[in-house]
């Protein structure tokens, strides 16, 4: 009985300790911005790895999600004779919810897991320790550029996702199902508000970017340096990242769009 309680207590303390270490890492990496700006090449390289290499998956999923929205929206709206509101539906769904969330989920799977595995392997092969030996702070050199690259890349990917999704919705709605294209764009422009919808969506994706990249770099930096540890940390990055995005999305939506 006492053993059991002891184990529970240790587990709780472990979790709280992990939170503390992750907060420390986030703060230290964010404070490393001076180093990142001085070594801009590092940042560019990481934006290439996390952002540019994710464009393909983001564009393809954006296109298909937009097309599905167009198809589903049309089949529902046509019953009410309101298929002219298709553009409004597609654009608002994408801007407010789908593109920040889906882009963040894909980002966690595509770029987050890669970050964790890369940093984890660096730790397992003691590259991080040797950096410290020669007087280079691995948090500034390795973690900070990756964190900032993630925070910069995801909002950009999210915006691209929205535009391609809206275009995909138009492809299905206007070109294929024959919604009048003037009303597709007109209703969209009449109902989408720049600050309320577009900017809030971007703010959402910045928040998701911080959380997902934070989880990814922390899981990589804090893992048990064995091959099993790396695989577990990579899984944790995707699972925790996705859950955090979905949970945070509800909170942010309630804050941004909850005032009826």
């Amino acid at each position: 009985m006492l053993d059991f309680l002891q184990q529970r207590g240790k587990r709780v303390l472990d979790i709280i300790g992990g939170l503390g270490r992750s907060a420390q890492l986030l703060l230290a990496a964010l404070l490393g911005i001076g180093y990142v700006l001085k070594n801009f090449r590092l940042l560019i390289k990481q934006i290439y790895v996390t952002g540019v290499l994710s464009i393909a998956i983001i564009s393809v999923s954006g296109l298909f999600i937009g097309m599905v929205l167009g198809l589903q929206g049309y089949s529902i709206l046509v019953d009410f004779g309101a298929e002219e509101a298709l553009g409004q539906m597609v654009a608002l769904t994408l801007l407010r919810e789908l593109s920040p969330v889906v882009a963040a989920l894909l980002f966690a799977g595509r770029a987050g897991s890669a970050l964790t595995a890369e940093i984890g392997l660096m730790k397992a092969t003691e590259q991080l320790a040797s950096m410290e030996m020669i007087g280079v702070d691995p948090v500034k050199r390795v973690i900070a550029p990756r964190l900032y690259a993630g925070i910069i890349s995801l909002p950009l990917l999210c915006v691209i996702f929205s535009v391609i999704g809206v275009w995909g919705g138009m492809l299905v709605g206007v070109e294929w199902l024959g919604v009048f294209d003037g009303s597709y764009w007109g209703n969209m422009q009449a109902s989408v508000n720049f600050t309320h919808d577009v900017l809030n969506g971007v703010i959402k994706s910045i928040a998701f970017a911080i959380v997902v990249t934070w989880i990814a770099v922390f899981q990589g930096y804090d893992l048990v340096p064995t091959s099993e540890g790396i695989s577990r940390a990579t899984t944790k990055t995707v699972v925790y990242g996705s859950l955090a995005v979905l949970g945070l999305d509800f909170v942010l939506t309630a804050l941004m769009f909850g005032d009826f």
Partner: protein
Amino acid sequence: MMTTRWIEISVGAFVVAAGLAFLVLALKVSGLDYNSDDKSTYTVYAHFNNVGGLKPRAKVTMAGVTIGRVASIEIDSEWYDAKVTLKIDNSMADKLSEDTSAMILTSGLLGENYIGLIVGAEEDMIADGGEIKDTQPALVLEDLIGKFLSSMGKE
């Protein structure tokens, strides 16, 4: 192995593509209309007995053309009616006569409420911060049904 130069070029292209996408969202999708709180609007107030389902950011139209937005709706504790603040596009400045009337309309059968303005014949114009005095409240369906039932009862 990718050269550094290629990486730089592709990152630059990525940033430019995202910038263009943002521009498309701003201009094509949201149409950056009157509700972005810039200085190109002026304020007019209107009191309504009942605003029905009118919401902030609903459009203000004249002859079916959107000329502004509802900025806020609050209760007037002096008269116990609704005080609606309208932001009208500056192109309509000094073009609304004193006896302009405001109605709360519904777009379609199930659509959202908006405000329709009908210009009057007076020479004097409403200034910034002025008030539209001639207003018609929203049609509340329950009231209509109630009137219909009571007129049925009389026959």
